[in-house]
């Protein structure tokens, strides 16, 4: 379209335009009920628009975003799989959506049953003994799990343990979590096969070590071959093993963290169990642990007593709440439905097909791209983009050019240990033709880099905007709309 409609909703606002949602207040005026000094001097400048404007604005905006529903979205580490529509319908049932978290347990037995049974399913899938659904996302799950470890050590007189070991391929949330939990994050090297360098691990492991925080399968898309040995080493040193379960999609039904030595872990329901990512969230990050850590899990716990489900607050050793109420319940409902529709066979097939798709795609591009670790991968694989420099392009250019082909790019520049990294996770819900088309686009871009480098450097060419100046955005931050000419500082210094 010639006339690109990029106005903000505020720019579409005109005095006196409106919708008709609520009746005119008919009671006592606010001034009669609240002392004048507490009342706002000027109303918040929400937009003044009619209903069609709201609808058209946000429908058109929506069309400006790639999504699983419209595009292949192989964003590594994010498991962008199909988000079943039925789960959206289920979560919107009034019986799940219109219940209040302060309702007595007797009135929400269905909700509690969903949570209780989901805890059980996740325990079974992970080989763990207890699960809390409270954390709102993976990162909060990490903090919860590490705080649980901390409480465990503290109770056993091991409060001096102050370090958490983290492989250098780890996601940024891992070290950040450790700091929040009052631990020092100590990085452990990866070896040439992409696994943990056992020598380095030995070197870093000490009686100051509180835990190892390991992602398995790792962010390199590899299963840690020495995981049993590693867990044993940690345990022998009196430390605990925390597993970042972001990549459970590859191993569900195939192997269980609880069976290979992990003490506590989190799930990302928005990855493995397909609760939709929503443009950035919400997620849900349940934490599963072994029996010895259960007493420390957050309150309330969802329990079953004599055929009734209840919330149990009486856990004196608990680390306490990590969030108001009980977690992102709407995501629990979706996850429960997802597990129930799959059953044990379906979940295992998910793992197998996610891994098959990744290996297939890897083999399709291996001839022209440098695969960082050339062995069978799990659900994802990483490309070392360094050789692209010889063509005069960078990973960023490839990513931007992929947009013109209608594909969302992989995760790029992560993990940090692979230069110019591209991390590709196709998931089980994509088909072969899509993988082929994506592989061909990737290879075509290499050809373009030779034939017409500008095409690649200045990509994308077919999006609503061209390549954006992210530097400028950071240097001169404009993070809110300010009406032209209007009084733009609302807050006053006192």
């Amino acid at each position, binding site marked *: 379209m010639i006339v690109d409609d990029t106005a903000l909703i505020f720019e579409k606002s005109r005095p006196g335009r409106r919708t008709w949602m609520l009746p*005119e207040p008919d009671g006592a005026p606010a001034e009669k009920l609240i002392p004048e000094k507490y009342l706002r001097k000027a109303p918040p400048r929400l937009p003044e628009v009619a209903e069609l404007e709201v609808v058209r604005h946000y429908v058109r905006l929506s069309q400006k975003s790639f999504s699983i529903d419209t595009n292949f979205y192989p964003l590594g580490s994010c498991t962008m799989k199909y988000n079943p529509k039925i789960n959206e319908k289920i979560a919107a049932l009034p019986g799940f959506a219109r219940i209040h978290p302060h309702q007595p347990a007797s009135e929400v037995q*269905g909700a509690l049953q969903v949570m209780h049974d989901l805890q059980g399913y996740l325990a079974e899938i992970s080989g763990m003994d207890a699960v809390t659904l409270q954390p709102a996302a993976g990162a909060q799950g990490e903090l919860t799990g590490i705080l649980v470890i901390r409480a465990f050590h503290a109770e056993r007189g091991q409060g001096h343990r102050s370090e958490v070991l983290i492989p250098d391929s780890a996601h940024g949330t891992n070290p950040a979590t450790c700091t929040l939990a009052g631990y020092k994050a100590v990085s452990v090297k990866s070896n040439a096969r992409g696994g943990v360098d056992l020598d380095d691990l030995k070197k870093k492991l000490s009686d100051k070590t509180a835990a190892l925080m390991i992602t398995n399968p790792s962010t390199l898309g*590899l299963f840690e071959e020495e995981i049993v040995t590693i867990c044993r080493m940690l345990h022998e040193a009196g430390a605990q093993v925390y597993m970042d379960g972001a990549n459970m999609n590859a191993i569900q039904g195939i192997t269980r963290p609880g069976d290979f030595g992990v003490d506590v872990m989190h799930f990302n329901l928005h990855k493995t169990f397909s609760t939709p990512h*929503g443009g950035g969230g919400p997620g849900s990050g349940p934490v599963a642990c072994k029996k010895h850590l259960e007493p420390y899990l957050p309150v309330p716990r969802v329990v079953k007593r004599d055929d009734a489900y209840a919330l149990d607050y009486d856990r004196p050793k608990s680390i306490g709440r990590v969030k108001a109420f009980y977690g992102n319940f709407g995501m629990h409902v979706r996850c429960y439905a997802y597990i129930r529709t799959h059953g044990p066979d379906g979940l295992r097939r998910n793992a197998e097909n996610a891994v098959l798709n990744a290996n297939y795609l890897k083999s399709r591009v291996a001839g022209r791209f440098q695969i960082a670790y050339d062995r069978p991968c799990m659900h994802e694989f990483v490309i070392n983009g360094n050789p692209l420099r010889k063509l005069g392009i960078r990973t960023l250019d490839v990513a931007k050019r992929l947009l013109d082909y209608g594909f969302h790019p992989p995760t790029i520049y992560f993990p940090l240990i692979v230069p110019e990294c591209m991390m590709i996770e196709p998931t089980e819900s994509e088909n072969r033709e899509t993988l082929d088309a994506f592989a061909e686009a990737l290879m075509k871009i290499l050809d373009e880099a030779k034939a017409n480098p500008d095409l690649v450097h200045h990509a994308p060419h077919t999006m609503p905007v061209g390549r954006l100046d992210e530097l400028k955005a950071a240097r001169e931050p404009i993070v809110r709309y300010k009406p032209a000419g209007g009084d733009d500082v609302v807050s006053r210094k006192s």
Partner: protein
Amino acid sequence: MDYIQNSPDDAAAMLKAVGAASVEDFFTSIPKEIRLNRPLNLPPGMTEQELLAHMEELAARNRTTESCTSFLGGGAYSHFIPSLVEQVAGRGEWVTSYTPYQAEASQGTLQSIFEYQTMICELTGLDVANASHYDGSTALAEAVAMALDHSDRNRILVSAAVNPQYREVLRTIFRQLGVEFVELATFEGATATSGLAEFAATAAAVVVQSPNFFGVVEDLAEISRAAKAGGARTIASVNPVSLGLLEPPGACGFDVAVGDAQPFGIETSYGGPWCGFIAARMELIRKMPGRLVGQTVDDKGRRGFCLTLQAREQHIRREKASSNICTNQALMALRATITMSTLGREGLRRMATLSLQRAHELHDAVTSVPGVSRPHQAPFFHEFVIQTPVDPDLLNERLLARGILGGVDLHQSYPDLRNGVLLCATERTSKADIERFRAGLAECLKDPR
């Protein structure tokens, strides 16, 4: 069942192309001894028809707030949700995308967040808001982290009238960091301000909530003055609906405002997913946790939006990051954004005013019932506390028998407020609801045991 696209034939062809005999070939890095050699012990799969029936049955075991008359609040509010919100925010493009890392292909998401940030700034009277946080409680914890990060003091003053669950979260998150929380007492339901300035001289921040957990409107300007005098940062947890009427924290001199945008188009959904928000003065922008969307230009000079100041975040700063948040609550922020756009200035005024009016009408009706007393005299917004001679548990049970979901039982969090119950009304509360409650309550209180 599954949502796998490839058929077994496809899989066979792909295996062949890869040169693998079976998928087992890919799993060789998993040692045999830790392989699960049995199916997971889970119920068997179900087709969509079976699943829907099962889930509808579970849903039917919950009593919805619509199927009765509810006066529950205490951090979760049943407000009117414009019909267009579900239909527009439910579009697949919004629901099934992720964090807009590739800005050019995510202008829709980015612009909507930019608009959200602006609306939160407008509501709170502050300069910068992030793209959303988990919920109000965790947003408050982040605000405290911001204050601590900015200060060498280690003490935080927290009003006793801050949502008790929020205070629990603060304790969980900061206990191991040696942060000391000191409770500020209340008077007539409002945070006591006498002596606050001296107190604040030792604190990194003063944390209050307004309207507070008792529904009472705090004197933010006064609190801010006192805190500033002591050199402490000020943090307010606010109900965004109330900001349609009440002077915003920014205008009262507060540094940070947090809260939950749940009342704007987000279902109560048994406590989540909701939408925490965090807004602050510009000088704190580099301390903000989580995603921030900024305006920029593309290579042709056209306006566009992208994630910005990412150097604050865990994926860049790693162990030096002051927050570990990655996934946030973007879709809920979108719902709030669309709701605020739909309400507009006039709609928000109506929502806030109607909530205020109904709550006061409820107050007048309820306090007319013999046995009901009020512990607080300070002005309130849409919630207030009553005390009765009957144990709240028992009272609520009796009300339930009349199809009424009574108020939040305060006996755990505020044992001093003997038999205290927190009642809430919104624009969804009708005059008939109020009368039904009054009559029901009168009956329930006849027998004080």
